[in-house]
């Protein structure tokens, strides 16, 4: 059974269509990413899943219930972990006090010491929250999201504002929660984050899903154009190559092809016959970033046309 099911979701704020006809399913136990630029409708979609915002149309089920249904809201919220985009932590209490307070809201909380270890705040347990750095407060925020041992954890841009080591620590935490069976929905505008964490991704632009799939197949990444790069071996000119190549950046040869298997076969066969190497040989698919930019670029173009 899907942990989350969204069908034909629509939401407008006045004349602004924040979300228009979005559908997706999140299977129990997977990490699902919503990727998109600011204003694409990620947060609105997430807030509807959390039951914070009402929807205009469409069917939404979270852990088998409608998040907009008041009668089951308390039940649902005891099984959800939520980390909002905006940092929100009680300033005057200590780290341990805040975690202990929120642990008491849930029927089966995770022990506070375990949460402190998971988010790397064990040494800061006795400190007032307002004395923590921004990154530490963000980690506490994530800790508050997992203290209830949620079945479904919703993270709205969880690593925005974190330094690289803080990001990596949050990634490790998300991977650990995934291995424990937690279903995770995260929004992000970092391509590497989605690639490292998500089993499936939906790209949102202008309030619509413009592509969906696994991060390595999305937007036709697993097929289509591939770039092969290498440096010319000594004593060989570009004209000697068995396949036509263009001089690329840094004195390299670049070959763009959709048929990389046969091109590589001819190229390496030729090199073996000639007993030369292909220094710096590198085969690169379209990056997720390329796909993302091409999928979401039209948004800016349209805006410019409107001006």
């Amino acid at each position, binding site marked *: 059974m899907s942990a989350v099911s969204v069908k034909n979701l629509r939401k407008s704020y006045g004349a602004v269509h924040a979300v228009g006809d979005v559908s997706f399913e999140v299977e129990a136990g997977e990490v699902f990413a919503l990727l998109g630029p600011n204003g694409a409708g990620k947060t609105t979609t997430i807030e509807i899943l959390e039951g914070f915002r009402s929807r205009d149309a469409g069917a939404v089920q979270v852990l088998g219930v409608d998040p907009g249904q008041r009668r089951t809201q*308390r039940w649902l919220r005891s099984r959800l972990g939520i980390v909002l985009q905006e940092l929100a932590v009680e300033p005057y209490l200590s780290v341990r006090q805040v975690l202990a307070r929120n642990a008491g809201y849930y029927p089966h909380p995770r022990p506070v010491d375990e949460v402190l270890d998971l988010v790397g705040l064990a040494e800061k347990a006795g400190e007032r929250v307002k004395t923590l750095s921004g990154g530490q407060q963000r980690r506490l925020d994530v800790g508050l999201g997992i203290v209830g041992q949620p079945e479904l954890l919703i993270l709205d841009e969880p690593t925005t504002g974190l330094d690289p080591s803080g990001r990596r620590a949050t990634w490790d935490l998300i991977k650990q929660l995934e291995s424990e069976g937690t279903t995770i929905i995260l929004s992000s505008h970092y391509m590497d984050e989605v690639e490292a964490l998500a089993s499936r991704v939906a790209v949102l632009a202008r309030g619509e899903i413009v592509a969906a799939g696994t991060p390595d197949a999305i937007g036709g990444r697993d097929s289509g154009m591939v770039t092969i790069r290498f440096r010319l071996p000594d004593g060989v000119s570009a004209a000697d190559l068995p396949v036509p190549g263009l001089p690329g950046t840094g004195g390299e040869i670049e070959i763009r092809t959709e048929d990389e298997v046969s091109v590589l076969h001819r190229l390496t066969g030729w090199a073996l016959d000639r007993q030369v190497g292909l220094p710096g040989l590198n085969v690169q698919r379209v990056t997720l970033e390329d796909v993302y930019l091409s999928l979401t670029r039209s948004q800016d173009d349209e805006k410019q046309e409107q001006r």
Partner: protein
Amino acid sequence: MTSPPPATSAPPAPPQTRPFSGLRDLRLIGRQVGYEQLSFWLNPVAAVFTIGFSLVFLILLGASAGSSRDASLGNIKLIQYYVPGFTAYGVMSACFTGLAVLLVIRRETGLLKRLRLSPLPTWALLGAVFISTLLVAFVEVILLLAVGRIAFGVHLPGNVGAFVLAIVVGGLSFTALGAATSTLVPNQDAAAPVTNIVFFVLLFLSGLWFPIKSGSGLAKFSGFFPIRHFITAVFAPFNVQKGASPWAWHDLLIMAIWGIVGVAVAIWRFNWAPRRG
């Protein structure tokens, strides 16, 4: 996106949680009040502003003008007027300004939204804030009466029932007005200045620092607002004026009407998420 959703067996009916489930929920709110108290007393600025100001004002005014007598109040010592006045002020600063500023800051920093999305029911979340506010007001009342009695030798309320009623009605009404005011303040930078300016102007015009002659234009003006009625209602149970009733029903009624208006505005305008962005 176009493929039909996988056929799923009907999910088991989720347990429906009642909004209130007895003893466990009472413990929950008690616990939440405890954390609210902790948060209040660990914030020195809030504690000093809310608790300290009324004490300092009472001591300064009492020491400078307390022993002079006022003809319009039946020739009693002014300190006997200031103690009830500042008791009312203390309750208002906890329930009205203190609460309004707290709610605006919590809303604008996202704390209200954060707790709203926790399993803590809304009534427990807001109820604990209101109960905690009333507890602070109660502490203030005790402190002010103690200072008045010990430092200035004023009479304590002769009619305890009428005094408690006035404090309770005032506390609840100004809590409602504090919650209502928080919905009218757009951002956290404006919270303290806006509420304090409104509050102090009305306090001044409502006769906190000097008794207002009944029937005067100022009495009519301030009679429209709840502050003067609160001061009057707290003053009456001290039984220091010969022949006056300790039960200020008229004043309590007007305060209660303001309180109901406050509840209505708060419910109508209440916002969990930050106003900006």
